């Protein structure tokens, strides 16, 4: 195991603090399974920690690097457990509705979920990278191995498709 310097630890700690909720959100969006999402999130951070010396700044931001690792881990898990079918299942409701949960919000959430079900896996992955992981278009492009303009175009196309699906569902 490589020698860990104090600076490296601090750098990784900062990355962890910054990215942990987003990595979990992204992985959970892909896997739709809380337990599996926890396992894969832990696995992704551990892999990133072990491989942190392989990170090269010229190849993209640290967040993009981390989410590349998380995506690979999630896809491996998805393939291993043959959870393709589970992507089609309604997502688990992980939010606490609370007493003041408005009917309008619940309705909108249902509409969005129904519309999401019309998207394919690649489109859902793209939306998860944007809205669950909170990555910029440039970072998404880095994670998916495409140009930034291509990533933006695909994102717009997917959002447009989702909006139409929402209109149809409502």
């Amino acid at each position, binding site marked *: 195991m490589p020698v860990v310097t104090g600076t490296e630890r601090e750098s990784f700690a900062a990355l962890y603090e910054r990215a*942990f909720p987003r990595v979990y959100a992204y992985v959970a969006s892909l896997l739709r399974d809380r337990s599996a999402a926890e396992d894969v999130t832990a696995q992704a951070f*551990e892999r990133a920690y072990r491989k942190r010396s392989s990170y090269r700044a010229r190849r993209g931001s640290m967040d993009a690097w981390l989410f590349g690792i998380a995506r*690979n881990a999630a896809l491996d898990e998805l393939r291993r457990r043959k959870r393709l079918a589970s*992507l089609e299942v309604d997502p688990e409701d992980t939010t606490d509705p609370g007493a003041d949960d408005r009917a309008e919000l619940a309705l909108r959430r249902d509409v969005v979920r129904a519309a999401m079900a019309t998207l394919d896996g690649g489109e859902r992955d793209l939306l998860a990278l944007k*809205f*669950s992981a909170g990555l910029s278009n440039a970072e998404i492009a880095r994670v998916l191995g495409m140009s930034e303009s291509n990533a*933006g175009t695909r994102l*717009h196309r997917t959002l447009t498709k989702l909006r139409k699906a929402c209109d149809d569902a409502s």
Partner: protein
Amino acid sequence: MTHPEDTATIERDLRAVDAALAAGTAEHGDPQARELQELALALRAEAPQPQPRFADELRARAEAGFPRKPRTVWLPRRLKPFLAPSAVTLTVVALIGVAIATSDDPGSSDGGGGGAVALDDGADGSSSGEAATGATAPEAGVGRAGGDDSAVVPSEPLPRDGGFAPSQSNRKIERSIAMTLEAPEDRVAEVADGVTRVTGRYGGFVLRSDLNTGEDGASGTFELRIPSARLQAAVRDLSALATVRSQTQSGQDVTRAHVTVKDRLQAARAERRSLLRRLESADTDEEAESIRRRLDLVAGEINGLRAQLRELRLRTDYAVVAVDLVSEGGESGSGAGGGSFDDALGDAGDLLVGTAGVLIRILALAVPLGAIAGAAWLGARIVRRRRRASALA
């Protein structure tokens, strides 16, 4: 292909989405863009949140540096598929490298074939310093070298009559001997004369000779052919001419080749006799002409086989004897056991060249194998990427 207006719309909508995510509100003036902003905010609100218990556990592990669970052997998962092929490849390369290195041993003499019998008695450098010990009584009237009256390398006794397989008296053996004689510089010419005299005395002949006497020292090389039946006595007399620095003997059994050629010759002769009889009783000109053509072919075959047999007999009846003659303190034939700085330099150069040769051979194998392994690695990576992508299909 995207239309220019579409590009502008896309850029506007993407900027609107990013602005909504940053501000947390959807306030764009364009209704279409505002709808996308609202959708973006709804999607972000849908992002699952980690359980506090899990967040605490993972934070603790991260702060501890992700301590490893006890495992027997840890390997990155992506390396595991290549572990076995890599081990096999490395083993093969190592074995071939060792085989090449072993076959390059400069002290070995393999006699040039699978049936070779090599008898090496101290030809390599390691034994040259101590080689001039033991005694063999000189029979010829040639003066002894340098006052050392026992300077003959004890050699493996040459086989009597039957060659290298005494139990079979009719074996046909090709024999060869290489020896290095060392004499004082002022006696090199005299020893060279002695080599020629001994060769003639035993019915042999000098095929090639080269004698140099100059400021750089005296040396000579001789390639002799000596009747195999008298080889032992001739070698003994040659050894008595000067100090024997090294001597190597080898033999190769060519009985099988000899018998094969002889059998084929007999068969060809029998066919010729048969053809001659048929020719005498041929009824038509065409038949006679056909037999004559066949006879010509058989005659050619017989001539060729005779030549082969003669060649084999020559090789087995006469032994090849190579004599290197060097002056004392001069060039060392085997490159060890002291010597001048130049000798050491030369030896070092030879060693480097030998090592480089072995390395080049190993590289010649390792580079293509490495290329194959690299291609396999790339292929596996592409396949893995596609499989991952298929998980989203």
